């Protein structure tokens, strides 16, 4: 069973936060889903290879030559903040000192 502590731990990994009320709603649906997927424990899976991908994939390589790529203004057009053609982001180093 998932607890409030677990939800907080997973949220930290997922970079999400929840109110106490949301946490409790989450725990309910989470535990229902997790108990449903317990179904898989009925199966003896010893020696079964895991499938990550259904198409037998090989490395697909292209010639190492110049190709069209998006112009800078197109790449930047959705930036929440920008300055001099660069993405502007909150201070990364020493941010906690502010």
């Amino acid at each position, binding site marked *: 069973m998932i607890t409030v502590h677990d939800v907080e731990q997973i949220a930290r990994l*997922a970079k*999400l*936060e929840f109110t106490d009320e949301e946490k409790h709603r989450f725990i309910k*649906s*989470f535990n229902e889903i997790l108990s449903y997927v317990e179904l898989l424990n009925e*199966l003896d899976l010893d020696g*079964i290879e895991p*499938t990550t*991908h259904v198409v037998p994939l090989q490395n697909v390589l292209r010639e190492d030559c110049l190709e069209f790529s998006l112009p800078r203004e197109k790449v930047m057009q959705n930036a*929440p903040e920008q300055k001099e053609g660069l993405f502007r982001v909150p201070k990364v180093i020493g941010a906690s000192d502010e």
Partner: protein
Amino acid sequence: MDFAALQQQLCDRQTTCVELTERYLAKIEKGVHLNAFIFVMRDQALQRAAEVDRKIAKGVAGRLAGMVIGVKDNLALTNTLTTCGSRILHNFVAPYDATVLRKLAQEDAIFIGKTNLDEFAMGSSSETSIFGAVKNPIDPQRVAGGSSGGSAAAVAAGMCTAALGSDTGGSIRQPASFCGIVGLKPTYGRVSRYGLFAYASSFDQIGPLTRTVGDSAHILQVIAGCDPQDSTAVDTAVPDYQQALQRSIVGLKIGLPREYFTTGLDPQVETVLNKTVEKLRNGGAQVVEVSLPHSRYAVAAYYILATAEASSNLERYDGMRYGYRAGHVRSLEETYVKSRSQGFGDEVKRRIMLGTYVLSAGYYDAYYRRAQQVRTLVKGDFDAALEQVDCLLTPTAPTPAFCLHEKLDDPLSMYLSDIYTVSVNLAGLPALSVPAGTDSKGLPIGAQLIARPFDEETLFAVGQFVQNP
């Protein structure tokens, strides 16, 4: 009217693309309460229609001239909003075209607007978009299905000739079934995913929602094929799908997986399926029972694997380079957390959380690895069954369209509405939902056909037979 008839009219100068587009725009306006479109590209569509009319007059128009298409709003279309129905992308203007849209435009298809969906295509009812729920044109008290519910409703309500959707666990087929139209999930790798906003990359596939099987074949013909922008799009020859429609079903062997006709199946759905079986037998097909023994594990395995992939794919929404960025924050970490928490809706957060959990240290082997092993078993079941038969026939969904809000607060029961569709995505197979009948209230019921990898031709041949009166 199907696309072939429509093209004939254009050819005979009985109508024009502009006239057609205007007719669709009027239908969209009339059906605005259905909430099928997030936004309508009125001016662009009319301008494009006039261009295509000029091309038709000169005799230089492409293969899809006159096809007016609704585009699910998780496909990138240059200089057009692409929101995925999410606050986190509410202002995102795509800087490039999805490969499928580039190919359709090259053949002179006309895009009429972006269709509504469950946020990030995560859902089975099209109720979780920030733009509100899609309603079923047959009964507006009911859901259109999901996640491509806007696309399905738009086609069913005559707002466009066809629409594109994406299918990760049934998101094309289930809404097609609920709205009484045709929905195709091509083989994984048949169609390039470039420009499709990723949900679960090893499952996602783009496909058409149409009124007829023939129209589905027309669209697949254009969008199928390999693509340097998507290394998972397989370099396998694209056959002539129109020819496949002419094929006879006499002597074809069709399997009924016995596990799909047990508990949980609505008796009226079963009745419709039985009639379809009769029709196929009368048409000369041989219908036999087959077994897919691991079917009951598919939904559990799917929701572990798909949420794991989703949690990883949606890490990119961090408020840095595009999308919603929360204000009034002091640090980088807080920007991430607030932007994501304010930007994503409940179901998307739930799936990110589930996926993060099943991938986290200590649980990886218990959940993720086990689910991948079950994927091997499910795929093995299909391989074995499709060695005995040419294709499988199942219900698309266990019930007709359910009511709005009916399952919204019960995620597990929502997930279980995908019970007949998710295994197909686990195995990467092609599948087609085709209208097979209605229940006593007149709600549509779809039959699902499943074939071997890259054998969409059999789906079209059998689907055409099922759909024709």
